[in-house]
């Protein structure tokens, strides 16, 4: 089944898809690293700079008021996107910054012997901040294992989440295996022990809707650039009471209520966390990306991506020496599939694909502990998005076969 017809409208929105790479049409399949940006997003940024640029929350003139309204409107758009309220949305640089801020703010709240539970499948950005927190407080990290299909093991989670657990954190979707964590169950286990839950949403947001209320998520972190938005803008969602209970992480203009030489008091949430001039154009660009996703609609996005994952599996499965990591069921993969080809080094394969215009990732995907766990040094990774088409993954499979022949000859 070719779904190129369904996607042709979307592809027009992404100018880069019409470019050539190494004299071949670009096939971009590293969407888990960062997605491309539609004209709608780029134009929203341009329009902001060309018609409304001013600093926010400061000026008393109309232009500044317009800028502030657009920025705060972006916050509301983000809030609605995940069923939160605007005051629960803090703009950060990225998922990484959001996770760091949460971890940092728990330095004053954890003690020796407390436990932080995560999974072995986390991205470095959801490991190292917790390692630091553990070092500073004497808390201990505990890693939930995966079952044989690559799923986060609920049996093991039940062992690891105990009365000592203060924080449970995990990627909603793994950036290596592409699989979805059993979020509802994990959050219930955590809350049963009064632990807070921190969800790394980096790989989830572009693929399906997330309702923080219904899932009862305490903190959610994600990046604009992985969901068709600009670089340099991320989101930290936190439940109102939790955010109010957090101290600001950075200090300066905008987050201040009153300052004397020796003292200062803060604004209310969310502003108390946004010190200095924020990435105004970035927030507006992210809101445009959300509007873009909404315009296409989740149903269309999900059915396109599922069909594409099926096509990807079907094509890769025609290569005998290719191993897919994690689940062997296409429906379990949300835009990401990791594999290796015979005993060939991923780096060599990636170069071969690159010469054919195909951009896919080879390496450790910022997940060394998971690589160790899977006993692999590195993998190849295809990650898809709304503008990819089955003809593209077909070409990947064809070139992979040629490369195997080349390196084995």
């Amino acid at each position, binding site marked *: 089944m070719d779904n190129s017809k369904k996607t042709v409208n979307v592809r027009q929105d992404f100018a880069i898809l019409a470019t050539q790479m*190494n*004299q*071949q049409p670009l096939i971009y399949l590293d969407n888990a690293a960062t997605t491309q940006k539609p004209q709608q997003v780029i134009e929203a940024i341009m329009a902001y700079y060309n018609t409304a640029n001013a600093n926010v929350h400061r000026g008393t003139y109309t232009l500044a008021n317009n800028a502030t309204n657009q920025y705060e409107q972006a916050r509301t758009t983000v809030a609605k996107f995940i069923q939160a309220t605007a005051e629960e949305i803090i703009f950060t640089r990225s998922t990484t910054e959001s996770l760091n801020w949460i971890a940092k703010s728990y330095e004053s709240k954890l003690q020796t012997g407390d436990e932080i539970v995560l999974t072995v499948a986390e991205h470095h950005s959801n490991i190292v901040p917790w390692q630091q927190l553990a070092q500073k407080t004497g808390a201990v990290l505990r890693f939930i294992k995966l079952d044989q299909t690559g799923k986060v093991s609920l049996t093991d989670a039940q062992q690891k989440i105990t009365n000592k657990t203060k924080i449970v954190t995990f990627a909603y979707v793994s950036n290596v295996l592409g699989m979805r964590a059993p979020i509802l169950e994990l959050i219930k286990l955590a809350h049963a022990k009064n632990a807070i839950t921190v969800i790394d949403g980096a790989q989830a947001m572009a693929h399906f809707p997330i309702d923080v209320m219904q899932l009862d998520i305490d903190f959610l972190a994600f990046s604009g650039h992985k969901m068709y938005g600009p670089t340099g803008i991320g989101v930290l969602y936190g439940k109102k009471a939790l955010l109010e209970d957090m101290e600001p992480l950075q200090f300066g203009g905008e987050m201040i209520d009153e300052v004397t030489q020796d003292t200062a008091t803060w604004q209310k949430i969310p502003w108390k966390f946004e010190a200095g001039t924020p990435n105004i154009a970035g927030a507006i660009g992210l809101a445009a990306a959300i509007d873009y996703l909404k315009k296409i609609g989740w149903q269309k996005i999900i059915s396109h991506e599922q069909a594409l994952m099926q096509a990807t599996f079907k094509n890769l499965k025609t290569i005998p020496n290719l191993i897919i990591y994690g689940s062997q069921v296409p429906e379990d993969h949300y835009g990401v599939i990791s594999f290796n080809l015979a005993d060939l*080094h*991923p*780096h*060599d394969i990636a*170069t*071969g694909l*690159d*010469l*054919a215009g195909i951009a896919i990732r*080879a*390496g*450790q995907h910022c997940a*060394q502990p998971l*690589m160790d766990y899977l006993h692999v*040094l*590195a993998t190849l990774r295809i990650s898809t998005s709304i503008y990819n088409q089955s003809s593209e993954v077909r070409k990947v499979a064809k*070139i992979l076969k*040629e*490369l195997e022949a*080349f*390196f084995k000859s």
Partner: protein
Amino acid sequence: MTLLKLEQLYKQVVLEHAQNPHNQGQLVMPTAQIRLKNPTCGDVIELQVMIENKIITNIKFTGHGCTISQASASMLTNTVKGLEIKTAQKVITNFLAKISGQVITQADNQQLKDAAVLSSIAQFPTRIKCATLAWHGLAEILENEGK
């Protein structure tokens, strides 16, 4: 067409070095060693050298990585074994110059031995890190020795 370009990168001698690397293994008593890592792809190379009277009397490597990084390490050990520190440093400089697209003299080129073919990588900027990993490592060792 793609395969043609690939052949240019993975010349026969590169593939041979990668499949049958020279000087792979560990030294019993190295005078210096270094661990190198390409964080993008996870390649790791450990270089061990034996330096006596300012001469590299032995050199070996272990590790894992892509064809280019393995072949390059193998070629490096072949090229510098037996050289004085100063000469080895010059050879490394020439190699790095050549691989970044600069022209070097024919004499310098010959001194590179098999590694000379790696210069084709100048056209594949994404792989220069792989091809130079071991060489940068040896350069660091030699700089410390020279101190």
